[in-house]
Protein backbone atom coordinates (compact mmCIF):
# COMPACT_ATOMS: atom_id res chain seq x y z
CA UNK A 1 0.00 0.00 0.00
CA UNK A 2 1.07 3.53 -0.72
CA UNK A 3 3.08 4.59 2.37
CA UNK A 4 1.85 8.20 2.30
CA UNK A 5 -1.79 7.08 2.10
CA UNK A 6 -1.22 4.61 4.91
CA UNK A 7 0.22 7.37 7.11
CA UNK A 8 -2.74 9.64 6.37
CA UNK A 9 -5.14 6.84 7.12
CA UNK A 10 -3.49 6.17 10.48
CA UNK A 11 -3.29 9.89 11.27
CA UNK A 12 -6.97 10.45 10.61
CA UNK A 13 -7.80 7.40 12.71
CA UNK A 14 -5.66 8.79 15.54
CA UNK A 15 -7.35 12.20 15.33
CA UNK A 16 -10.78 10.53 15.41
CA UNK A 17 -9.75 8.41 18.41
CA UNK A 18 -8.48 11.45 20.31
CA UNK A 19 -11.66 13.34 19.34
CA UNK A 20 -13.80 10.61 20.86
CA UNK A 21 -11.54 10.29 23.91
CA UNK A 22 -12.05 14.01 24.59
CA UNK A 23 -15.34 13.03 26.28
CA UNK A 24 -13.26 11.51 29.08
CA UNK A 25 -12.33 15.06 30.06
CA UNK A 26 -15.79 16.44 29.48
CA UNK A 27 -18.38 16.50 26.70
CA UNK A 28 -16.93 18.70 23.98
CA UNK A 29 -18.03 19.76 20.51
CA UNK A 30 -15.12 17.80 19.15
CA UNK A 31 -16.58 14.64 20.68
CA UNK A 32 -20.04 15.34 19.31
CA UNK A 33 -18.60 15.95 15.84
CA UNK A 34 -16.84 12.60 15.78
CA UNK A 35 -19.78 10.85 17.41
CA UNK A 36 -22.06 12.00 14.59
CA UNK A 37 -19.43 11.27 11.97
CA UNK A 38 -19.17 7.72 13.31
CA UNK A 39 -22.93 7.21 13.36
CA UNK A 40 -23.29 8.51 9.81
CA UNK A 41 -20.49 6.37 8.41
CA UNK A 42 -21.68 3.25 10.22
CA UNK A 43 -25.25 3.78 8.98
CA UNK A 44 -23.94 4.32 5.45
CA UNK A 45 -21.89 1.15 5.66
CA UNK A 46 -24.96 -0.83 6.72
CA UNK A 47 -26.64 0.29 3.52
CA UNK A 48 -23.57 -0.65 1.47
CA UNK A 49 -23.60 -4.09 3.10
CA UNK A 50 -27.35 -4.31 2.35
CA UNK A 51 -26.67 -5.23 -1.26
CA UNK A 52 -23.05 -6.28 -1.20
CA UNK A 53 -23.18 -8.74 1.70
CA UNK A 54 -26.84 -9.72 1.82
CA UNK A 55 -29.35 -9.02 -0.92
CA UNK A 56 -26.95 -9.79 -3.77
CA UNK A 57 -25.66 -13.18 -2.54
CA UNK A 58 -28.67 -14.29 -0.49
CA UNK A 59 -31.55 -12.96 -2.55
CA UNK A 60 -30.59 -11.88 -6.07
CA UNK A 61 -28.11 -14.66 -6.85
CA UNK A 62 -30.49 -17.29 -5.51
CA UNK A 63 -33.36 -15.79 -7.45
CA UNK A 64 -31.46 -15.74 -10.73
CA UNK A 65 -29.62 -19.03 -10.17
CA UNK A 66 -26.10 -19.73 -11.31
CA UNK A 67 -24.58 -21.28 -14.41
CA UNK A 68 -21.03 -21.80 -15.60
CA UNK A 69 -20.25 -21.01 -19.23
CA UNK A 70 -17.42 -23.08 -20.65
CA UNK A 71 -15.00 -20.57 -22.22
CA UNK A 72 -14.08 -22.98 -25.06
CA UNK A 73 -17.37 -24.61 -26.06
CA UNK A 74 -19.54 -21.70 -24.86
CA UNK A 75 -21.94 -24.27 -23.39
CA UNK A 76 -23.77 -23.19 -20.25
CA UNK A 77 -24.08 -25.69 -17.36
CA UNK A 78 -26.52 -24.93 -14.54
CA UNK A 79 -24.92 -24.95 -11.05
CA UNK A 80 -28.08 -23.97 -9.18
CA UNK A 81 -31.60 -23.18 -10.34
CA UNK A 82 -33.04 -19.70 -9.71
CA UNK A 83 -36.09 -19.30 -7.50
CA UNK A 84 -37.98 -16.38 -9.00
CA UNK A 85 -40.61 -16.66 -6.28
CA UNK A 86 -38.10 -15.04 -3.87
CA UNK A 87 -39.21 -11.79 -5.52
CA UNK A 88 -42.24 -11.98 -3.27
CA UNK A 89 -39.99 -11.36 -0.24
CA UNK A 90 -39.20 -7.77 -1.20
CA UNK A 91 -42.74 -6.41 -0.72
CA UNK A 92 -43.14 -8.45 2.49
CA UNK A 93 -39.90 -7.01 3.86
CA UNK A 94 -40.87 -3.51 2.81
CA UNK A 95 -44.12 -3.86 4.78
CA UNK A 96 -41.89 -3.25 7.83
CA UNK A 97 -41.51 0.35 6.66
CA UNK A 98 -45.26 0.93 6.97
CA UNK A 99 -44.60 1.36 10.69
CA UNK A 100 -44.27 5.06 9.92
CA UNK A 101 -47.80 5.34 8.47
CA UNK A 102 -50.79 5.80 10.75
CA UNK A 103 -53.31 3.75 8.78
CA UNK A 104 -51.24 0.73 7.86
CA UNK A 105 -48.65 0.43 10.62
CA UNK A 106 -50.19 -2.90 11.72
CA UNK A 107 -48.79 -4.45 8.54
CA UNK A 108 -45.24 -3.84 9.76
CA UNK A 109 -45.90 -6.63 12.28
CA UNK A 110 -46.17 -9.21 9.51
CA UNK A 111 -42.44 -9.46 8.63
CA UNK A 112 -41.56 -9.08 12.33
CA UNK A 113 -44.07 -11.83 13.15
CA UNK A 114 -42.54 -14.13 10.54
CA UNK A 115 -39.04 -13.68 12.00
CA UNK A 116 -40.25 -14.05 15.60
CA UNK A 117 -42.26 -17.10 14.53
CA UNK A 118 -39.14 -18.71 13.10
CA UNK A 119 -37.24 -17.90 16.30
CA UNK A 120 -39.93 -19.23 18.61
CA UNK A 121 -40.41 -22.41 16.57
CA UNK A 122 -36.71 -23.17 16.93
CA UNK A 123 -36.73 -22.86 20.72
CA UNK A 124 -38.25 -26.30 21.21
CA UNK A 125 -35.29 -28.28 19.96
CA UNK A 126 -32.42 -25.90 20.52
CA UNK A 127 -33.28 -25.81 24.20
CA UNK A 128 -32.40 -29.46 24.56
CA UNK A 129 -29.40 -29.15 22.27
CA UNK A 130 -27.95 -26.47 24.50
CA UNK A 131 -29.01 -27.73 27.92
CA UNK A 132 -29.18 -31.52 27.51
CA UNK A 133 -25.42 -32.01 27.72
CA UNK A 134 -25.11 -29.40 30.46
CA UNK A 135 -27.77 -31.04 32.63
CA UNK A 136 -26.03 -34.37 32.11
CA UNK A 137 -22.62 -32.97 33.03
CA UNK A 138 -24.06 -31.37 36.17
CA UNK A 139 -24.87 -34.81 37.57
CA UNK A 140 -21.44 -35.33 39.10
CA UNK A 141 -20.54 -38.46 41.08
CA UNK A 142 -20.15 -37.59 44.78
CA UNK A 143 -19.28 -40.97 46.34
CA UNK A 144 -15.57 -41.90 46.20
CA UNK A 145 -14.72 -45.25 44.63
CA UNK A 146 -11.50 -45.61 46.61
CA UNK A 147 -10.00 -44.40 49.87
CA UNK A 148 -6.43 -45.52 49.10
CA UNK A 149 -5.42 -41.90 49.04
CA UNK A 150 -7.25 -38.65 49.79
CA UNK A 151 -6.07 -36.95 46.59
CA UNK A 152 -5.40 -38.48 43.19
CA UNK A 153 -1.78 -39.79 43.22
CA UNK A 154 0.70 -38.42 40.72
CA UNK A 155 0.78 -41.01 37.94
CA UNK A 156 2.76 -39.65 34.99
CA UNK A 157 5.81 -41.82 35.82
CA UNK A 158 3.82 -45.03 36.40
CA UNK A 159 3.21 -47.80 33.84
CA UNK A 160 0.15 -47.41 31.59
CA UNK A 161 -2.14 -49.96 33.36
CA UNK A 162 -1.61 -48.24 36.72
CA UNK A 163 -2.23 -44.85 35.11
CA UNK A 164 -5.49 -46.16 33.68
CA UNK A 165 -6.51 -47.59 37.08
CA UNK A 166 -5.85 -44.28 38.83
CA UNK A 167 -7.65 -42.32 36.11
CA UNK A 168 -10.74 -44.52 36.52
CA UNK A 169 -11.02 -43.94 40.30
CA UNK A 170 -12.86 -41.17 42.09
CA UNK A 171 -10.71 -40.07 45.03
CA UNK A 172 -12.26 -38.38 48.11
CA UNK A 173 -10.86 -34.92 47.21
CA UNK A 174 -12.52 -35.10 43.80
CA UNK A 175 -15.75 -36.36 45.35
CA UNK A 176 -15.78 -33.37 47.70
CA UNK A 177 -15.17 -31.01 44.75
CA UNK A 178 -18.01 -32.65 42.85
CA UNK A 179 -20.29 -32.33 45.87
CA UNK A 180 -19.46 -28.62 46.06
CA UNK A 181 -20.28 -28.34 42.33
CA UNK A 182 -23.67 -30.00 42.86
CA UNK A 183 -24.48 -27.96 45.98
CA UNK A 184 -23.50 -24.74 44.15
CA UNK A 185 -25.73 -25.42 41.17
CA UNK A 186 -28.68 -26.49 43.35
CA UNK A 187 -28.34 -23.52 45.70
CA UNK A 188 -27.97 -21.06 42.82
CA UNK A 189 -30.99 -22.59 41.07
CA UNK A 190 -33.02 -22.38 44.27
CA UNK A 191 -32.49 -18.62 44.18
CA UNK A 192 -34.63 -18.56 41.04
CA UNK A 193 -37.60 -20.40 42.55
CA UNK A 194 -40.38 -17.89 42.57
CA UNK A 195 -43.26 -20.38 42.45
CA UNK A 196 -43.67 -20.64 46.22
CA UNK A 197 -42.63 -18.78 49.37
CA UNK A 198 -39.15 -19.51 50.64
CA UNK A 199 -40.12 -20.56 54.16
CA UNK A 200 -38.25 -22.81 56.56
CA UNK A 201 -34.59 -22.82 57.49
CA UNK A 202 -33.49 -25.16 54.73
CA UNK A 203 -35.10 -23.24 51.89
CA UNK A 204 -34.12 -19.86 53.28
CA UNK A 205 -30.56 -21.05 53.88
CA UNK A 206 -30.33 -22.49 50.40
CA UNK A 207 -31.66 -19.25 48.97
CA UNK A 208 -29.06 -17.18 50.84
CA UNK A 209 -26.26 -19.57 49.93
CA UNK A 210 -27.45 -19.41 46.32
CA UNK A 211 -27.18 -15.63 46.38
CA UNK A 212 -23.60 -15.77 47.69
CA UNK A 213 -22.60 -18.38 45.17
CA UNK A 214 -24.13 -16.40 42.35
CA UNK A 215 -21.88 -13.54 43.46
CA UNK A 216 -18.89 -15.81 42.78
CA UNK A 217 -20.19 -16.19 39.22
CA UNK A 218 -20.69 -12.45 38.89
CA UNK A 219 -17.18 -11.87 40.24
CA UNK A 220 -15.76 -14.14 37.54
CA UNK A 221 -17.82 -12.35 34.89
CA UNK A 222 -16.57 -9.00 36.22
CA UNK A 223 -12.91 -10.08 36.25
CA UNK A 224 -13.08 -11.47 32.74
CA UNK A 225 -14.92 -8.39 31.47
CA UNK A 226 -12.27 -6.14 33.01
CA UNK A 227 -9.60 -8.00 31.04
CA UNK A 228 -11.57 -7.54 27.82
CA UNK A 229 -12.14 -3.82 28.32
CA UNK A 230 -8.55 -3.11 29.32
CA UNK A 231 -7.26 -4.94 26.27
CA UNK A 232 -9.41 -2.73 24.04
CA UNK A 233 -7.86 0.33 25.68
CA UNK A 234 -4.36 -1.16 25.32
CA UNK A 235 -5.11 -1.82 21.65
CA UNK A 236 -5.97 1.85 21.14
CA UNK A 237 -2.78 2.88 22.89
CA UNK A 238 -0.91 0.53 20.59
CA UNK A 239 -2.67 2.07 17.60
CA UNK A 240 -1.62 5.57 18.61
CA UNK A 241 1.79 5.08 20.21
CA UNK A 242 3.12 2.12 18.25
CA UNK A 243 1.44 1.84 14.83
CA UNK A 244 1.05 5.54 14.16
CA UNK A 245 4.42 6.53 15.61
CA UNK A 246 6.16 3.74 13.68
CA UNK A 247 4.62 4.92 10.43
CA UNK A 248 5.37 8.56 11.27
CA UNK A 249 8.97 7.58 11.90
CA UNK A 250 9.10 5.80 8.54
CA UNK A 251 7.56 8.79 6.76
CA UNK A 252 9.59 11.57 8.28
CA UNK A 253 12.61 9.87 9.81
CA UNK A 254 13.37 7.68 6.83
CA UNK A 255 13.61 4.67 9.20
Amino acid at each position, binding site marked *: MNETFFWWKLTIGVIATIGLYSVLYRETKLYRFFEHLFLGLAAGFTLVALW*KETLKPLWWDKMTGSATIDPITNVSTMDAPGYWVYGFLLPIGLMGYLVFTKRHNWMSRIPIGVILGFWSGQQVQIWWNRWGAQIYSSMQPVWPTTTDSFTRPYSADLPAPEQAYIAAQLYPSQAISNLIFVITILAALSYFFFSFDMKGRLLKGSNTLGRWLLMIGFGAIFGSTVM*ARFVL*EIDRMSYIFVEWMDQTGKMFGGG
Partner: protein
Amino acid sequence: MSKPEKSFWEKAQAIDRRVLYAVLIVCTAISLFFKTEIPVNPDDSSKDLYVSLMTIDPNKTVLIESDWTNSTRGESAGHFEALMRILMNRNIKFVLYSIADPQAPQVARDALLRIQEERKAQGLKVYEPWVDYLDLGYFPNAEGHLQAVGNNIRTAWGGRKERDEAGVERDVFTSPVLSGVRVVGDASLLIVCSASATIDIAVERLYGKVPLGFMVTGVMGPNALPYYQARQIVGMGVGLKGVYDVEYMMTYGVNYRVEGTNKPKVSYREESVTIPPVTEGTTFDRGARYFLPLHVALALMILAIILGNVAMFASRKKRVVA
Protein backbone atom coordinates in the same frame (compact mmCIF):
# COMPACT_ATOMS: atom_id res chain seq x y z
CA MET B 1 -17.90 29.42 57.16
CA SER B 2 -14.91 27.52 55.82
CA LYS B 3 -15.25 23.83 55.05
CA PRO B 4 -13.33 21.47 57.35
CA GLU B 5 -10.18 20.26 55.66
CA LYS B 6 -10.42 16.73 54.26
CA SER B 7 -8.21 14.05 55.77
CA PHE B 8 -5.75 12.05 53.69
CA TRP B 9 -8.05 9.03 53.62
CA GLU B 10 -11.05 11.13 52.60
CA LYS B 11 -8.99 12.53 49.77
CA ALA B 12 -7.85 9.03 48.86
CA GLN B 13 -11.50 8.06 48.50
CA ALA B 14 -12.26 10.89 46.14
CA ILE B 15 -9.50 10.97 43.53
CA ASP B 16 -10.75 12.75 40.39
CA ARG B 17 -11.78 10.27 37.72
CA ARG B 18 -9.65 12.12 35.17
CA VAL B 19 -6.54 11.43 37.24
CA LEU B 20 -7.38 7.69 37.15
CA TYR B 21 -7.90 7.88 33.38
CA ALA B 22 -4.56 9.63 32.89
CA VAL B 23 -2.74 7.06 35.05
CA LEU B 24 -4.29 4.22 33.02
CA ILE B 25 -3.29 5.81 29.71
CA VAL B 26 0.26 6.58 30.81
CA CYS B 27 0.89 3.17 32.43
CA THR B 28 -0.47 1.08 29.57
CA ALA B 29 1.17 3.22 26.87
CA ILE B 30 4.60 3.08 28.53
CA SER B 31 4.41 -0.66 29.14
CA LEU B 32 3.75 -1.23 25.43
CA PHE B 33 7.37 -0.28 24.75
CA PHE B 34 8.83 -3.00 26.98
CA LYS B 35 9.15 -6.23 25.07
CA THR B 36 9.43 -9.11 27.51
CA GLU B 37 8.46 -12.72 27.18
CA ILE B 38 6.27 -13.63 30.13
CA PRO B 39 6.22 -17.31 31.13
CA VAL B 40 2.70 -18.67 31.63
CA ASN B 41 0.81 -21.81 32.49
CA PRO B 42 -1.72 -21.94 29.62
CA ASP B 43 -5.33 -22.63 30.62
CA ASP B 44 -6.65 -26.15 30.05
CA SER B 45 -9.26 -24.81 27.63
CA SER B 46 -6.55 -23.07 25.54
CA LYS B 47 -4.46 -26.26 25.49
CA ASP B 48 -7.43 -28.33 24.31
CA LEU B 49 -8.15 -25.86 21.53
CA TYR B 50 -4.54 -25.72 20.40
CA VAL B 51 -4.10 -29.49 20.50
CA SER B 52 -7.29 -29.88 18.40
CA LEU B 53 -6.06 -27.36 15.84
CA MET B 54 -2.68 -29.06 15.59
CA THR B 55 -3.99 -32.61 15.35
CA ILE B 56 -6.96 -32.33 12.95
CA ASP B 57 -6.73 -33.97 9.54
CA PRO B 58 -4.96 -31.45 7.25
CA ASN B 59 -6.92 -32.77 4.26
CA LYS B 60 -10.24 -31.71 5.74
CA THR B 61 -11.68 -28.21 5.57
CA VAL B 62 -12.08 -26.03 8.66
CA LEU B 63 -15.10 -23.72 8.93
CA ILE B 64 -14.47 -20.34 10.54
CA GLU B 65 -17.29 -18.20 11.82
CA SER B 66 -15.73 -14.77 12.17
CA ASP B 67 -18.09 -12.74 14.35
CA TRP B 68 -15.95 -9.83 15.50
CA THR B 69 -15.38 -6.29 14.33
CA ASN B 70 -12.71 -3.72 15.12
CA SER B 71 -14.55 -2.86 18.33
CA THR B 72 -12.85 -5.91 19.89
CA ARG B 73 -9.66 -5.83 17.78
CA GLY B 74 -7.48 -6.03 20.89
CA GLU B 75 -8.58 -9.58 21.64
CA SER B 76 -10.36 -10.97 18.58
CA ALA B 77 -7.73 -9.90 16.04
CA GLY B 78 -5.11 -11.76 18.08
CA HIS B 79 -7.25 -14.90 18.06
CA PHE B 80 -8.01 -14.64 14.36
CA GLU B 81 -4.40 -13.94 13.35
CA ALA B 82 -3.11 -16.88 15.41
CA LEU B 83 -5.78 -19.11 13.84
CA MET B 84 -4.79 -18.01 10.32
CA ARG B 85 -1.11 -18.66 11.03
CA ILE B 86 -1.82 -22.13 12.41
CA LEU B 87 -4.05 -23.17 9.49
CA MET B 88 -1.70 -21.74 6.85
CA ASN B 89 1.28 -23.41 8.49
CA ARG B 90 -0.52 -26.73 8.38
CA ASN B 91 -1.79 -26.02 4.83
CA ILE B 92 -5.42 -26.55 5.84
CA LYS B 93 -8.21 -25.18 3.63
CA PHE B 94 -10.84 -23.04 5.31
CA VAL B 95 -14.16 -21.28 4.75
CA LEU B 96 -14.89 -17.88 6.28
CA TYR B 97 -18.38 -16.59 7.04
CA SER B 98 -20.01 -14.19 9.48
CA ILE B 99 -23.39 -14.04 11.13
CA ALA B 100 -23.01 -11.32 13.76
CA ASP B 101 -22.39 -8.01 12.01
CA PRO B 102 -22.28 -6.72 8.42
CA GLN B 103 -18.83 -5.24 9.13
CA ALA B 104 -17.42 -8.59 10.26
CA PRO B 105 -16.56 -10.05 6.81
CA GLN B 106 -14.57 -6.96 5.79
CA VAL B 107 -12.66 -6.94 9.07
CA ALA B 108 -11.80 -10.61 8.65
CA ARG B 109 -10.68 -9.97 5.04
CA ASP B 110 -8.38 -7.15 6.22
CA ALA B 111 -6.88 -9.35 8.95
CA LEU B 112 -6.39 -12.18 6.47
CA LEU B 113 -4.67 -9.77 4.07
CA ARG B 114 -2.28 -8.69 6.86
CA ILE B 115 -1.26 -12.30 7.51
CA GLN B 116 -0.91 -12.93 3.76
CA GLU B 117 1.45 -9.96 3.42
CA GLU B 118 3.43 -11.09 6.47
CA ARG B 119 3.82 -14.60 5.02
CA LYS B 120 4.73 -13.23 1.62
CA ALA B 121 7.51 -11.16 3.20
CA GLN B 122 8.71 -14.30 5.05
CA GLY B 123 8.81 -16.26 1.80
CA LEU B 124 6.02 -18.64 2.89
CA LYS B 125 3.08 -19.96 0.87
CA VAL B 126 0.38 -17.36 0.23
CA TYR B 127 -3.22 -18.65 0.33
CA GLU B 128 -5.26 -18.25 -2.84
CA PRO B 129 -8.99 -17.53 -2.73
CA TRP B 130 -11.14 -20.31 -4.25
CA VAL B 131 -8.26 -22.79 -4.14
CA ASP B 132 -7.19 -22.56 -0.49
CA TYR B 133 -9.99 -20.65 1.15
CA LEU B 134 -13.48 -19.32 0.53
CA ASP B 135 -14.95 -16.10 1.83
CA LEU B 136 -18.74 -16.43 1.95
CA GLY B 137 -19.48 -13.07 3.58
CA TYR B 138 -22.37 -12.24 5.84
CA PHE B 139 -25.59 -14.08 6.71
CA PRO B 140 -27.90 -11.77 8.67
CA ASN B 141 -30.27 -14.25 10.30
CA ALA B 142 -27.83 -16.08 12.56
CA GLU B 143 -30.30 -18.58 14.03
CA GLY B 144 -31.97 -19.60 10.76
CA HIS B 145 -28.69 -19.72 8.94
CA LEU B 146 -26.88 -22.06 11.32
CA GLN B 147 -30.00 -24.20 11.51
CA ALA B 148 -29.87 -24.56 7.73
CA VAL B 149 -26.13 -25.32 7.79
CA GLY B 150 -26.77 -28.11 10.31
CA ASN B 151 -29.63 -29.46 8.22
CA ASN B 152 -27.86 -29.52 4.86
CA ILE B 153 -24.78 -27.42 4.24
CA ARG B 154 -24.97 -27.99 0.47
CA THR B 155 -28.38 -26.40 0.18
CA ALA B 156 -27.66 -23.74 2.85
CA TRP B 157 -24.62 -22.48 0.91
CA GLY B 158 -25.68 -23.78 -2.51
CA GLY B 159 -26.24 -21.08 -5.10
CA ARG B 160 -23.62 -18.92 -3.38
CA LYS B 161 -21.15 -17.78 -6.02
CA GLU B 162 -17.49 -16.88 -5.81
CA ARG B 163 -14.92 -16.22 -8.49
CA ASP B 164 -12.64 -19.10 -9.41
CA GLU B 165 -8.96 -18.82 -10.43
CA ALA B 166 -10.04 -17.67 -13.91
CA GLY B 167 -12.28 -14.93 -12.51
CA VAL B 168 -15.49 -16.79 -13.46
CA GLU B 169 -18.30 -16.77 -10.87
CA ARG B 170 -19.14 -20.32 -9.86
CA ASP B 171 -21.06 -22.16 -7.20
CA VAL B 172 -18.91 -22.44 -4.07
CA PHE B 173 -19.35 -26.22 -3.87
CA THR B 174 -17.42 -26.60 -7.11
CA SER B 175 -14.31 -25.14 -5.41
CA PRO B 176 -11.54 -27.39 -4.04
CA VAL B 177 -12.31 -26.06 -0.57
CA LEU B 178 -15.88 -27.32 -0.34
CA SER B 179 -16.01 -30.03 -3.00
CA GLY B 180 -15.46 -32.78 -0.38
CA VAL B 181 -18.01 -31.42 2.07
CA ARG B 182 -21.40 -33.18 1.85
CA VAL B 183 -22.63 -32.55 5.39
CA VAL B 184 -21.33 -30.07 7.96
CA GLY B 185 -19.67 -32.95 9.83
CA ASP B 186 -17.32 -33.45 6.89
CA ALA B 187 -15.49 -30.36 8.10
CA SER B 188 -12.89 -31.20 10.73
CA LEU B 189 -13.74 -28.30 13.02
CA LEU B 190 -15.90 -25.19 13.23
CA ILE B 191 -14.05 -22.38 14.98
CA VAL B 192 -16.25 -19.54 16.20
CA CYS B 193 -14.14 -16.41 16.62
CA SER B 194 -16.68 -14.26 18.35
CA ALA B 195 -17.31 -11.22 20.47
CA SER B 196 -21.02 -11.86 20.86
CA ALA B 197 -23.70 -14.39 21.74
CA THR B 198 -23.31 -16.18 18.41
CA ILE B 199 -21.44 -18.85 20.42
CA ASP B 200 -24.77 -19.82 21.99
CA ILE B 201 -26.42 -20.02 18.57
CA ALA B 202 -23.60 -22.26 17.31
CA VAL B 203 -23.96 -24.69 20.22
CA GLU B 204 -27.75 -24.70 19.99
CA ARG B 205 -27.78 -25.46 16.26
CA LEU B 206 -24.59 -27.37 15.54
CA TYR B 207 -23.56 -29.23 18.69
CA GLY B 208 -23.23 -32.91 17.84
CA LYS B 209 -23.05 -32.24 14.11
CA VAL B 210 -19.50 -30.86 13.87
CA PRO B 211 -16.76 -30.42 16.53
CA LEU B 212 -16.85 -26.84 17.81
CA GLY B 213 -13.98 -24.68 19.07
CA PHE B 214 -14.28 -21.15 20.44
CA MET B 215 -12.01 -18.12 20.35
CA VAL B 216 -13.90 -15.56 22.37
CA THR B 217 -13.41 -12.24 24.10
CA GLY B 218 -13.11 -11.92 27.86
CA VAL B 219 -16.68 -10.68 28.02
CA MET B 220 -18.01 -13.86 26.41
CA GLY B 221 -15.59 -16.20 28.19
CA PRO B 222 -17.63 -16.86 31.35
CA ASN B 223 -20.73 -17.60 29.22
CA ALA B 224 -18.77 -20.15 27.23
CA LEU B 225 -17.23 -21.94 30.22
CA PRO B 226 -20.27 -24.18 30.92
CA TYR B 227 -20.08 -25.45 27.31
CA TYR B 228 -16.45 -26.38 27.82
CA GLN B 229 -17.17 -28.16 31.11
CA ALA B 230 -20.01 -30.11 29.42
CA ARG B 231 -17.66 -31.05 26.54
CA GLN B 232 -19.97 -29.39 24.01
CA ILE B 233 -16.88 -27.71 22.58
CA VAL B 234 -13.41 -29.18 22.06
CA GLY B 235 -11.62 -26.20 23.58
CA MET B 236 -11.54 -22.43 23.73
CA GLY B 237 -9.27 -19.45 24.03
CA VAL B 238 -10.61 -16.68 26.24
CA GLY B 239 -9.58 -13.07 25.83
CA LEU B 240 -6.01 -11.89 25.59
CA LYS B 241 -4.82 -14.62 27.98
CA GLY B 242 -6.19 -17.11 25.43
CA VAL B 243 -4.32 -15.38 22.61
CA TYR B 244 -1.08 -15.39 24.56
CA ASP B 245 -1.59 -19.03 25.59
CA VAL B 246 -1.88 -20.05 21.92
CA GLU B 247 1.13 -17.93 20.88
CA TYR B 248 3.13 -19.43 23.77
CA MET B 249 2.22 -22.98 22.70
CA MET B 250 3.06 -22.16 19.07
CA THR B 251 6.51 -21.07 20.30
CA TYR B 252 7.23 -23.88 22.77
CA GLY B 253 5.00 -26.74 21.65
CA VAL B 254 2.96 -28.98 23.92
CA ASN B 255 4.51 -31.84 25.94
CA TYR B 256 7.65 -31.03 23.96
CA ARG B 257 10.94 -31.50 25.79
CA VAL B 258 13.91 -29.51 24.57
CA GLU B 259 17.07 -31.60 24.68
CA GLY B 260 18.77 -31.30 28.02
CA THR B 261 15.60 -30.49 29.97
CA ASN B 262 13.47 -33.02 31.79
CA LYS B 263 10.18 -31.10 31.72
CA PRO B 264 8.25 -29.52 28.86
CA LYS B 265 7.43 -25.81 29.02
CA VAL B 266 3.78 -26.65 28.45
CA SER B 267 2.55 -29.99 29.71
CA TYR B 268 -0.72 -31.56 28.60
CA ARG B 269 -2.79 -34.10 30.49
CA GLU B 270 -2.59 -36.65 27.64
CA GLU B 271 1.01 -37.81 27.74
CA SER B 272 0.72 -39.43 24.29
CA VAL B 273 0.29 -36.03 22.63
CA THR B 274 3.48 -34.28 21.63
CA ILE B 275 3.34 -31.15 19.51
CA PRO B 276 6.68 -29.59 18.53
CA PRO B 277 7.03 -25.80 18.31
CA VAL B 278 5.98 -24.06 15.10
CA THR B 279 9.16 -23.31 13.22
CA GLU B 280 7.87 -21.28 10.26
CA GLY B 281 6.56 -17.74 10.35
CA THR B 282 5.50 -15.60 13.29
CA THR B 283 4.43 -17.07 16.62
CA PHE B 284 4.58 -14.33 19.27
CA ASP B 285 2.67 -11.28 18.06
CA ARG B 286 -0.32 -9.33 19.34
CA GLY B 287 -0.83 -11.48 22.44
CA ALA B 288 2.79 -11.00 23.46
CA ARG B 289 2.71 -7.27 22.78
CA TYR B 290 -0.36 -6.63 24.91
CA PHE B 291 0.28 -9.08 27.74
CA LEU B 292 2.59 -6.87 29.82
CA PRO B 293 0.28 -3.81 29.52
CA LEU B 294 -2.57 -6.09 30.61
CA HIS B 295 -0.62 -7.00 33.75
CA VAL B 296 -0.10 -3.31 34.45
CA ALA B 297 -3.78 -2.46 33.88
CA LEU B 298 -5.05 -5.32 36.03
CA ALA B 299 -2.62 -4.40 38.81
CA LEU B 300 -3.89 -0.83 38.58
CA MET B 301 -7.47 -2.06 38.85
CA ILE B 302 -6.70 -4.20 41.92
CA LEU B 303 -4.85 -1.29 43.53
CA ALA B 304 -7.76 1.07 42.81
CA ILE B 305 -10.22 -1.33 44.45
CA ILE B 306 -7.95 -1.83 47.48
CA LEU B 307 -7.31 1.90 47.81
CA GLY B 308 -11.03 2.70 47.68
CA ASN B 309 -11.78 0.13 50.39
CA VAL B 310 -8.85 0.91 52.67
CA ALA B 311 -9.64 4.62 52.46
CA MET B 312 -13.30 3.92 53.25
CA PHE B 313 -12.46 1.86 56.35
CA ALA B 314 -9.74 4.24 57.52
CA SER B 315 -11.91 7.34 57.25
CA ARG B 316 -14.85 5.53 58.88
CA LYS B 317 -12.64 4.43 61.78
CA LYS B 318 -11.33 7.95 62.19
CA ARG B 319 -14.89 9.28 62.26
CA VAL B 320 -15.87 6.77 64.96
CA VAL B 321 -12.82 7.70 67.03
CA ALA B 322 -13.64 11.40 66.64
